[in-house]
C-alpha cells in the first residue's frame, strides 16, 4: 500500500475501533435498527462520504483505492452504513454526468445529507441486462411500473437510482424514494442490514429525472457497479480478516486435551491455508482499486477477479471460523455467526461468484 493508504487505513481503524466495533453492530441488530445517523454524520465529517466526490462539489475525491481501504476496515468489524450504496456507487454514477444537478447531488453525498440506494435487481440473481421494470413514455416523461428486490439500503434511502427498460433501452432514473406510487417494504435479512423490496406502480418520472441519456443507462451505471463491486470485494476481504483474527485468537487460547488447540497440526495447516488465500485475495482487491483509478473503462476483469476471489475467501473464512470455534461459534451470543451471515449476503450482492467468473471467462478467452 502507498503511504497515504496506510495512513488512511490507520486513521479508519482507530476511528472504527472506538465508534463501530462489532458490539455496535450487535446493538443495532438487537434494537432492530439498520442505520446509525450519528455514525454516518461522523463519516461525512471525516470526508469518507465524499471519498469519490470531486473537490469542486465538496468531496475529498481520494479515489477507488482509498474507498477500498475504507470499505475493508468497515468489513473487519461489520460496520453498518450506506457507504457502498451512496458514497461509492451513487457518487460514481452521478459524476459520470457533469451538470448543476449532479454537482448538487454529489455535494449532498459529500456532506452526508442524502442516502442513495441502487434499485437494479429484480430476480434472485444480479442481472442488470435482464431488467423488466417498465418505463413507459407518457407525454414528456415516463411512468415506471414493476418491482425491484434486494434493494440494499432501500428502506433508509432518500433517493433511488432505478434501472428501467424504456422503448429505447435500459434507462437510469434518479428519483426521490418517497415519490407517489413507490412502496417500500423492508426485508428481514439474515445479516440484519437494510434491504428492501420496492414496488413502482405508475410512478411519474420526467426527462430531468433521467441520469444520463434515455436508452443509455450503462454508460452511467456500469462504472458505478464496477466501483461498488470493487469496494464490496474490499469489504469482504476485511470481513475475512476480521473473522480470521477471531479464529486465530481462539486457537491460541482455547484448551482441549490439556493444550491450546492451535498446537494441533490439523488446525494449524487449515489456518495457514486460509491466511495464504487471504493474501492472494488481498492482491486482487488492491489491484481492482488501482485499476479503477487508472483506467476505469478497462477495469472490469480486475473488478470481477477481486469480487470472485473475495467471495470465495470470505466463505472459507467464516466456514472455518465457525468450525474451529466449535459449539460456541454456533451461538448467537458469539460474533462469528454475524460474519457468516454477512458473508452470505454480500456473496450475492452485485453478482455472485458465478456471475463474476463468467466476466473473467469472457475476458480470458473461455
Amino acid at each position: 500500500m502507498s503511504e497515504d493508504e496506510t495512513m488512511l487505513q490507520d486513521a479508519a481503524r482507530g476511528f472504527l475501533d472506538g465508534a463501530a466495533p462489532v458490539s455496535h453492530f450487535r446493538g443495532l441488530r438487537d434494537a432492530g435498527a439498520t442505520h446509525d445517523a450519528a455514525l454516518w454524520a461522523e463519516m461525512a465529517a471525516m470526508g469518507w462520504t465524499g471519498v469519490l466526490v470531486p473537490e469542486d462539489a465538496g468531496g475529498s475525491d481520494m479515489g477507488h483505492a482509498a474507498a477500498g481501504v475504507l470499505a475493508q476496515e468497515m468489513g473487519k468489524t461489520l460496520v453498518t452504513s450506506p457507504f457502498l450504496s451512496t458514497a461509492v456507487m451513487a457518487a460514481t454514477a452521478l459524476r459520470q454526468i457533469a451538470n448543476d444537478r449532479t454537482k448538487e447531488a454529489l455535494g449532498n453525498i459529500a456532506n452526508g445529507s442524502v442516502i442513495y440506494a441502487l434499485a437494479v435487481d429484480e430476480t434472485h440473481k444480479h442481472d442488470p441486462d435482464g431488467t423488466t421494470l417498465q418505463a413507459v413514455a407518457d407525454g414528456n416523461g415516463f411512468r415506471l411500473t414493476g418491482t425491484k428486490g434486494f434493494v440494499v439500503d432501500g428502506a433508509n434511502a432518500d433517493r433511488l437510482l432505478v434501472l428501467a427498460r424504456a422503448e429505447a433501452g435500459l434507462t437510469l432514473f434518479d428519483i426521490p424514494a418517497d415519490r407517489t406510487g413507490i412502496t417500500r417494504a423492508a426485508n428481514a435479512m439474515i445479516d440484519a442490514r437494510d434491504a428492501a423490496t420496492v414496488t413502482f406502480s405508475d410512478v411519474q418520472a420526467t426527462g430531468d429525472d433521467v441520469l444520463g441519456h434515455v436508452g443509455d443507462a450503462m454508460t452511467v451505471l456500469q462504472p458505478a457497479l464496477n466501483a461498488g463491486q470493487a469496494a464490496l470485494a474490499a469489504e469482504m476481504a476485511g470481513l475475512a480478516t476480521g473473522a480470521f483474527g477471531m479464529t486465530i485468537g481462539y486457537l491460541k487460547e482455547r484448551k482441549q486435551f490439556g493444550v491450546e488447540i492451535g498446537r494441533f497440526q490439523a488446525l494449524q495447516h487449515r489456518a495457514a491455508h486460509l491466511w495464504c488465500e487471504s493474501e492472494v485475495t488481498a492482491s486482487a482487491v488492491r489491484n481492482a482499486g488501482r485499476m479503477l483509478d487508472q483506467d476505469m473503462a478497462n477495469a472490469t476483469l480486475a473488478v470481477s477477479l477481486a469480487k470472485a476471489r473475495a467471495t470465495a475467501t470470505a466463505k472459507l473464512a467464516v466456514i472455518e471460523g465457525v468450525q474451529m470455534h466449535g459449539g460456541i461459534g454456533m451461538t448467537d451470543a458469539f460474533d462469528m455467526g454475524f460474519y457468516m451471515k454477512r458473508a452470505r449476503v454480500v456473496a450475492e450482492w452485485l453478482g455472485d461468484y458465478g456471475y463474476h467468473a463468467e466476466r473473467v471467462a469472457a475476458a480470458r478467452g473461455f
Partner: protein
Amino acid sequence: MTDIELGAFRAETRAWLEANCPAEMRDGIRDEETICWGGRNWQFTSAAQKTWLEVMAAKGWTVPTWPVEYGGAGMDRAHDKILQEELDAIGARWPLQSFGIWMLGPALLAFGTHQQKLQYLPPIARGEVRWCQGYSEPGAGSDLASVQTKAVSDGDYYVVNGQKVWTSYADRADCIFALVRTDPDAKKHLGISFLLIDMDSAGVSTKPIRLISGSSPFCETFFDDVRVPKSNVVGTEHRGWDVAKHLLTHEREMISGGGAGLLGTRALGAVLAEHEGGMDAVTRAEALTCEIDSLAIGLTLERYKDQAESGGGVGDASAMLKYEGTELNKRRHELLMSAGGADALQWEGTHAGLAADWLRTKANSIEGGTSEVMLSIISRRILGLPG
C-alpha cells in the same frame, strides 16, 4: 525515478535489444532444449546463443540487479521490470539461467566476503561456471537440518564424506554449494556449514535419478574423502543454516513463479478451448476457477516483488508464494491432461511432453520444502501459533 527517465530507459533498451539480440534468439521458446546453462564444458547450440550470452553479459544484463563490480548492472526493480518486459516483447530467450544466478548469487551477496563475491559472482554472471545445490540427503528431506554429510577439519582443509540426493544437474555442474556437518556435537541447526566444492575434486562422483516422468536432471552425489579449502565456507563456520534458510527463500520464490509464470503468456481458457469439442461443464468450471486463482496469484507475486524492492523484503511470506504457486501449477496440469483426454496419454504424438510435464509438476509441492512444511512455517512464524 521519474516516468520520463524510465521512458527513456525503455526506449534505449528497446533499441539496443533490436540491434543486439540475434534473430534466432527471438522465437519465444524457453524450454529445456533452448536454455543456456553455461559452465566450463558448455556446448553452445548455435553461434547466436554464444553471441547473445556475450553481449548480454557485457552489459551486466544476465544479472541486472547485481552490483556492477560483481558482473551485474546495478538495476533497481523498476528498470529490471522494464528490461524483462522488453525482452518478452521481442520473444527473446533468456541469455543464461543457472542456480548460480537464482540461488548461490543472492546467498553470496548477503553472506559472502568481498573476496568471495569477486571470485565467484562475475563467472556466474558470464556463464563460465555452472553450480548445483547439495542440500537434501537420503535421511534429510523435509528435516533438512539433520544432514549427515561430514566435513572434518584437517589443517587448512576439510575432508568431506557423505551423500547428497536431488542434486539437479550435478553430472554437468562445475561446482556445488553444499550443507555439511562441521560440528557433530552441536545441536543440529548449529553444526552445519555452507561449503563451496569444486566437482572436479578427487572423490566426487554422481549418478542420475530416473523419475516417474522419465529421465531427469536430478542426481545422487557422493563425496569420498574430498579435500576442500576452509576458505570456501560462506558465512560463519557452523552457522551455515542461516545461509541455507536465506537461500531457500529464494528457491521458494523461484519455484512459486512456475504456476504464475505462464499467466502472462496464455490464458488457460484459450489453451483449453483449442481442444476439439470444447470442454464439458464440469471441466470448464474447474478451469475457470483455476484461471481466477492464477490471475490473483500472479498479482500476489507482483505485489511481493514490489514489496521486496522497496526494502520490505518477502521473508517468511515466500512460503505462501511457494505453496500457492506450486499447488496452482499442479491443478493447471491436471486440467491440461483432462482436456487432452486419451490423446495426452502417449509419451509421443500431438501432446508430446504434456504427460511428462504433468507428472513432473507433482514434485513442485515437494521440492524446496513441501506444501505441508510451508504451512507449518506460516503457522508458526506468521500466525504465531504454538508448536
